């Protein structure tokens, strides 16, 4: 019985028509493609994107120029100088150079930072038209979102 049935299924092409119906169903399914430059998939929560510096609530830099990141960086990305202002108990960074083209996103600087000043952001688009923007200076370490993209390649957002 089952032998005749399987023969008939093959002979009458029933299996093939079933397969065709399945693909027809998928033809009308929703598509998973994300059209990249126009729509961007938000990165996951713990995504290790570009490094950036943060400020505290008063707008002062969290960075105290302790150079812990500079010491631990395996690829020697940082070049930091700091100064102590009159009567202050902490230091302010006067120079904070970060070389993106050397960074391997290992995250050691984030781990070692005593004030949580340097953290991974979720920015991952780092296309630039020249190598200039790949060297971050102190003010540029605070850029986010659109401003960061404008800094990279003149604001075409691609």
């Amino acid at each position, binding site marked *: 019985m089952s032998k005749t049935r399987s023969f008939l299924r093959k002979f009458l*092409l029933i299996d*093939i028509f079933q*397969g*065709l119906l*399945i*693909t*027809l169903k*998928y*033809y009308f*399914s*929703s*598509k*998973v*493609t994300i*059209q990249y430059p126009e729509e961007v998939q938000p990165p996951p929560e713990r995504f290790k994107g570009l490094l950036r510096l943060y400020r505290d609530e008063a707008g002062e830099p969290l960075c105290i120029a302790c150079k812990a990141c500079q010491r631990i960086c395996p690829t020697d990305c940082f070049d930091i100088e700091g100064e102590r202002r009159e009567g202050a108990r902490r230091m302010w960074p006067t120079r904070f150079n970060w070389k993106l083209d050397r960074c391997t996103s290992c995250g050691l600087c984030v781990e070692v930072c005593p004030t949580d000043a340097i953290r991974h952001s979720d920015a991952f688009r780092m296309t630039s038209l020249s190598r200039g923007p790949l060297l971050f200076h102190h003010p540029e370490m605070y850029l986010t979102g659109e401003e960061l993209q404008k800094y990279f390649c003149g604001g075409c957002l691609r």
Partner: protein
Amino acid sequence: MTAQTLLFELLIPVAKIIAVILYPMIMVIVMIWLERRVVAWIQGRVGPNRVGFQGILQPTADALKLFFKEDIIQREADAFLFNISPHLVMFSSLLAFCFVPLGESFRIGGYTLNLWVASSPVGLLLVLGLSAVGVFGIIFGGWASNSKYPLMGALRSVVQVLSYEIPIGLTVLTVVFFSRSIDLVEIVNHQQHGKIWFGFMLPVSFIVFWISGIAETNRAPFDLPEAESELVAGYHTEYSGMKFAYFYIAEYTHMVLVSSLVVILFFGGWLPPFPNARFFSFLHWIPGFVWYLIKIMFFLYVYVWIRATLPRYRFDALIKLAWKWFVPLSMANFFVVVALKYLL
């Protein structure tokens, strides 16, 4: 020479020849785009949608890229056969379109415009023969490349051509038996006078012809000569630039040709549905070649649909399918059809 004779003897034939080259090319462009989009949709992707409206210019852009690519000939290759085989494939599938009618004859004033370049009383044989010549291009190209993957592709092509040509011949025989002609125009006219299209009258013939036609065009699931997961790219592995494009275009042209043949032989060519029923006579207002294009596009769509659905046949499974099933089946089909015709 008067203006009228100039028009009828020179300009119209030249226009027809240009049309018969342009028509398959446009169909190829549409077909490459359609295939990529449809397969992408079935696989849950979007497919090319950037170049031109919804990606319709993508095949043109690809062809332009191939046009500027370097034309590489291997040092060990047989240069003559290597160079001639893409042209052989392209030429044979384009030449076959001369004998394929694209629609019914128009009467403009006193002049009858036939929508075919050459009408031959043996049109069907010519088309089948020319589409078989294209296989020689594949075999020559695979052999002349002097490389193992193309050679394997060529060998597979030889076996494939031996497998599918016989069922095709036997199924075409049933159609010819009813229409009493191997003129493609006559076959369509016969379906107009007859009550029913051959595809519904001879379903076994149609299905065997269609499956063999897929094998003839080297399409999935019978794309053994160019099985990219096994043979890199099969017979055209060593080709680059415009010669590769010729193989590529010829494959799609061949698909259009086989779809045209299926439509002409089994689904009434340019006839609208129910050509004789008075109730559906309004369908005659749509010109014949529009009906014809709709039917061809349907079968081309089915080509793509099948490709997106079925996995590739194994080499021996194809031979087994053709020789142990299609040949006896189409033979039995022919005898049953003949017996029924004379008994009833």
